């Protein structure tokens, strides 16, 4: 009995150590996941956050986009064209950040597909919970194309995926 318990404990310790090593091993996929999680953190604002803190977060968020990044959200928002270039994206975020109330952004179901030559595709769902009276909640599916530039994974293209096919207006 004692021997089997000893074996069981050893097995648990070895399995735990193996999991710990695997979990902390820096792979490209984990780096991409950290970038995505960092984007969600940067897009999260508390109600009492000052303008400087908000602008610092916007600066950090925009630094996660490549210089030639493109934002395609016309599938879900009433905008006519894509937003091109990191500066344009940053400008939009700078304009919006001071007017946002408390918003908690989280990412779910992040699926990373590594391609060749420092490229990767990411599929994920982002949710935003605002501090409204009814706890307003919204979620959106995104596809991202990411590139590794100077060892850092950056978003080159972000597409909002429409959850439902709409009727075509003739």
């Amino acid at each position, binding site marked *: 009995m004692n021997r089997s318990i000893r074996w069981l404990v050893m097995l648990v310790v070895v399995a735990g150590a193996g999991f710990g090593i695997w979990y902390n091993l820096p792979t490209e996929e984990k780096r991409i996941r950290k970038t995505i999680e960092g984007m969600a953190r940067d897009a999260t604002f508390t109600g009492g956050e000052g303008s400087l803190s908000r602008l610092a977060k916007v600066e950090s968020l925009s630094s996660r986009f490549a210089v030639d990044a493109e934002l395609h959200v016309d599938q879900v928002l009433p905008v006519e064209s894509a937003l091109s270039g990191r500066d344009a994206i940053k400008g939009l975020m700078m304009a919006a950040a001071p007017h946002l109330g408390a918003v908690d952004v989280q990412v779910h*179901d992040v699926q990373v597909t590594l391609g060749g030559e420092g490229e990767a595709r990411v599929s994920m*769902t982002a949710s935003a919970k605002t501090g409204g009276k009814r706890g307003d*909640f919204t979620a*959106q*599916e995104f596809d991202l194309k990411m590139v590794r530039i100077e060892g850092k994974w950056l978003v080159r293209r972000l597409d909002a995926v429409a959850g439902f096919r709409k*009727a075509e207006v003739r």
Partner: protein
Amino acid sequence: MSENNAASDIEPSRSWWRIVLIGVIGRSPRFTVIRILCYVVLAWGVFGYVLRPMRVAGISMEPTYKLNQVNFINRWSYRSSEPQRGDVVAVRMAGESVLYLKRIIGLPGERVVFHRGQVFINGEELPEPYVKNRAPWNDPEMELGPDEYFLVGDNRGMAARDHDHGAVRRSKIVGKVLL
């Protein structure tokens, strides 16, 4: 005499612990461990693969399903049959952590149109007793593909642009809401 008194002071607490110990781990610890393992495996199987717990986070299904209401999605509901009109179903996004909760109103191959808030299927008015408030939505006619279902929430009092609705492929439907 004093030793006897001390012994009688200790005895009741020992028996109390014994009752608690038996209550917690049972008379046969080995059987209790096996029973707990069986419960864990059963719960993992049922709630991981068959009945997925969920909490309503939006208002698009009000008044049928209210904010923060807890429910389950039966992932096996469409293993032997196809989704039916009127079923409330969960639809996946990138994965299954966040799901849309909507009602099926249009079946594959049908033509769906919203006119002044009323739904017409293949030109016939659809009775919808579950809709309590109706804003005058106008959506152009849509013909569903052979693998598509038309989904919409019960809360039609809100603006159509704020309410996700439209056609989804069968493969995106995770299951039917249980309660």
